[in-house]
């Protein structure tokens, strides 16, 4: 099912996510024209965990939503797993897993039905669907509450079902919009473990957060975004070197000029 473009020997590897000069302008009835993203360039590779770090309203969610084909950029281009988000959004959606800040589960479907429902949307049917759902129920330890309605599950259980839903079509690219917002410590920790496990599976994970410790612990590279601009991109060491600060909080403050 997955037809991602594998990098050819000798040629530079195709980035899992690539955004060039992304710009997003909203027409707001109160403020007139609002520029949410300004010429944003971004590149993430397979097996890489990339964190978008920024305060509320910085443009993190807009960036992720454009990459997930929910929003269209005003100008610029973006590719996910080699597919242009503007030209073939349905193919991009087949190749990426997306998890928003809310768990996004239907309260009147059971955990199993949720996985089957979204599996069918990805074209899985019959035995293939059944066996994939069984795999996910087992690997995410959902079996014991698979027949419980999602509305009645605990936050941690919902989170597991959400993750299983996001990866049921085995995407090479995962986009997570503030995945730990509103979670308790245990659920948050489970999410962090999951993100870490993606690195070993060769998946690209792009996630947004405003929790500095999360970014510090998980990210191979960090992009600091503020007022729609990507101010700096690099490993934590590179950002420290560039700003001359040790703690990520200070690095962040220096970059955004706070």
């Amino acid at each position, binding site marked *: 099912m997955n037809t991602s473009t594998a990098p050819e020997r000798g040629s530079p590897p195709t980035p899992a996510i690539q955004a060039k000069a992304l710009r997003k302008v909203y027409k707001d009835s109160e403020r007139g*024209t609002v520029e949410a993203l300004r010429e944003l360039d971004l590149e993430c590779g397979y097996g890489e965990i990339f964190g978008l770090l920024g305060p509320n309203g910085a443009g993190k969610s807009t960036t992720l939503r454009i990459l997930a084909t*929910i929003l269209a950029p005003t100008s610029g281009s973006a590719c996910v797993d080699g597919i242009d988000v503007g030209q073939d959004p349905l193919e991009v959606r087949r190749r990426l897993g997306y998890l928003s800040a809310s768990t996004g589960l239907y309260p009147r479907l059971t955990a199993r039905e949720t996985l089957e*429902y979204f599996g069918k*949307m990805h074209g899985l049917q019959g035995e293939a669907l059944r066996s994939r759902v069984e795999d996910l129920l087992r690997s995410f330890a959902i079996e014991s509450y698979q027949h419980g309605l999602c509305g009645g599950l605990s936050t941690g259980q919902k989170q597991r079902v959400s993750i299983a839903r996001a990866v049921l079509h085995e995407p090479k690219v995962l986009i997570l919009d503030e995945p730990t917002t509103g979670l308790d410590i245990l659920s948050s920790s489970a999410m962090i473990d999951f993100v870490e496990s993606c690195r070993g599976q060769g998946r690209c994970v792009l996630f947004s957060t405003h929790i500095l410790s999360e970014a510090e612990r998980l990210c191979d590279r960090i992009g600091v975004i503020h007022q729609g601009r990507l101010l700096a991109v690099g490993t934590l060491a590179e950002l420290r070197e560039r700003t001359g600060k040790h703690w990520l909080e200070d690095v962040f403050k220096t970059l955004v000029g706070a």
Partner: protein
Amino acid sequence: MATSRAKPAVAGTRTLGLALVILCGELRGLLRDRRALFAGVILPVLLYPLMFLLNGKLEQVARSNMAEREVQIACDFTRLEPGLAEELTNRLQALPATEITTLDASFWYANELALHEGRQDAVDAELREARLLLARGPSVLLIGGPHPILPARPLLRMCHSKSDEASGEAQARVESLLTTLREELRDQRLAVALGAQDPGRWLLPSIVDVADPSATKGAALGRLLPVIAILAVLSAGAYAALSSFAGEREAQTLETLLVQPVPARAIVAGKYAAVALLALCAVIGNLASFQVTVSLGWLSLPGLDPAAAADARLDWLRIALALLAVVPATLLICALLVLVSARARTFREGQQLLFPLTMACVIPAGLAGSTDVALDTWTACVPVFGASLALRDAMRGTLAQGPLALCSLAHVGWTLLCMRSMPGTIDAERIFATSSSEEEQTQRQVQSRAALMWGLTGVIATYMLRDWLQSLSPVGGLLITLLLILPALALFCARGVAKRAKERVVQVLGLVRCAPGAVLGALMLAPGLALVMREWIHWQQRLLPMPTRALEQGTGLEFLMELSLPALLALVALAPAIGEELFFRGAVLSGLRRDHRPLKALLVQAALFAAAHASIYRFLPTLAVGLLAGTLRLGSKSLWPAMALHAAYNGWVVSTERFEVLRDPAWAALTLPGLLILWAVWERRPAASAALPVA
């Protein structure tokens, strides 16, 4: 070539398959929702049995209660002619559950002349005496004696208390008894006097009702069914649409759905199908329950003879025709419900948005049942109204195939038109592209609510003060209301909004410069608007005739027509254009627009504007003027075009009363250049004009 043709076919099949997946998911969710089940299945099915049984029971209970009620009648016939006194007493004693007691009527004997002449002191004394006597137990006092002036004639006087149910029942029994006795005595005397030459007997017709019992029943049901069927559709469809669209946004599951490889049209088609299926289930269940209830003889309707109700059964053909009429209407109503509820951010907001749509469906259905408008080529095409007429005629057994086919086709056509706009309802750009913080949103909500409160205050103040002021001085009252009270309220409302939004009051009110073309265009719309409103009022008069009394009473502003033309224009055109526009379009609309979408803000302010005119017959025309003036206000970002339209429209309407030449419909042709000018002005406007940041 074959491959290129096959591709769209494959894509179409895939979209259909995905729509089915969405449909199954939606149906599963809805069927597990107790409220959806109640609205979609239980309520429509149980409605008729409950309604008919309850109505029948209530009538029965009311009848039996009153018939079994023990009443006491206190009589004094001592001064009546003995034969009549005996006859009356016998008949009274024969009444069921009635006790006859004697009464000391010395007060009446002492005052009989004064009472007969209606002297106030005697009448007051009688009231006191009668109250005292009634308080001791009797339900009615009945006093008989000779006429004080013509002693050969008897005179009866009955005292009862309208506030007491038993007294009312006793009075009804006595009146019925006296009517029967009166008629018998008259007939006896006539028979003696006229013998065989009684013309009353010659002209007494034998009445034969030739109506088929099923037609009688059908006519009664035809009045009821359109409203109930449309309500069943609305009840089930509205909940399903809100749950599938507004509920999905509120539960934040929409974002997850939008990143699945499913085209928007498949998502919307699946959701719409779920809504329509539930609504169809409701209406089919409702009609089946209707047929079963009627067949079981549980039918009980006001104005329907119980014998006719219990007699003929309603044949299945009528129910089948009713179903054919209501199914396309159901599809259309569901499409409209989807379009409206998808605009809501929350379930609650969706309920508010759906209210006008519900009214827009129920009112035509009610009118169709209660009027004699014929189902013809034109009415068949009117959304909902045409289907309601077809439903009514199906029940009456007079529905012809031609109008039914046309009505169904028209409703399917309207539905397809609505469905074309449906994929846009889950437009992520609109849903997710927002740049406001939560604090800003809260602030805007506060401004909007305050504007609504001011709007209601304005309407109430206008109601209470206008009539009072006009009763003191017609012209002065009008001027004070329009040029003092409303502008003052507008100023207070706009000050609050301006303070919170850190803007100037004139900006909030829209008293800012605008393109002269916008004012000119607005002025040119007036003759066309006046013509449309005139036609509308004629049409409305057919559907909702104004009572003769209301016509005779007029609007209370007839005195204006005696004024000179300049004075008339100043009072009727200029003053309302200033006062009402400053308040409704300037302050209230501006405030409402802070939080509400243009359509909602326009509808709310126009409804307030129409309500302020305090006439159900003028409500819709005034609403339309309010909507148009509001659109000009929002479109031009200035109040001047709305003022110009209001003044020109009012001025045109009163001028046509004086100048015959202005009644020519050709004047309406000015509308087209007017619209073109407005379009040209708005096209030239910069994309993000800062003249009015909000509206």
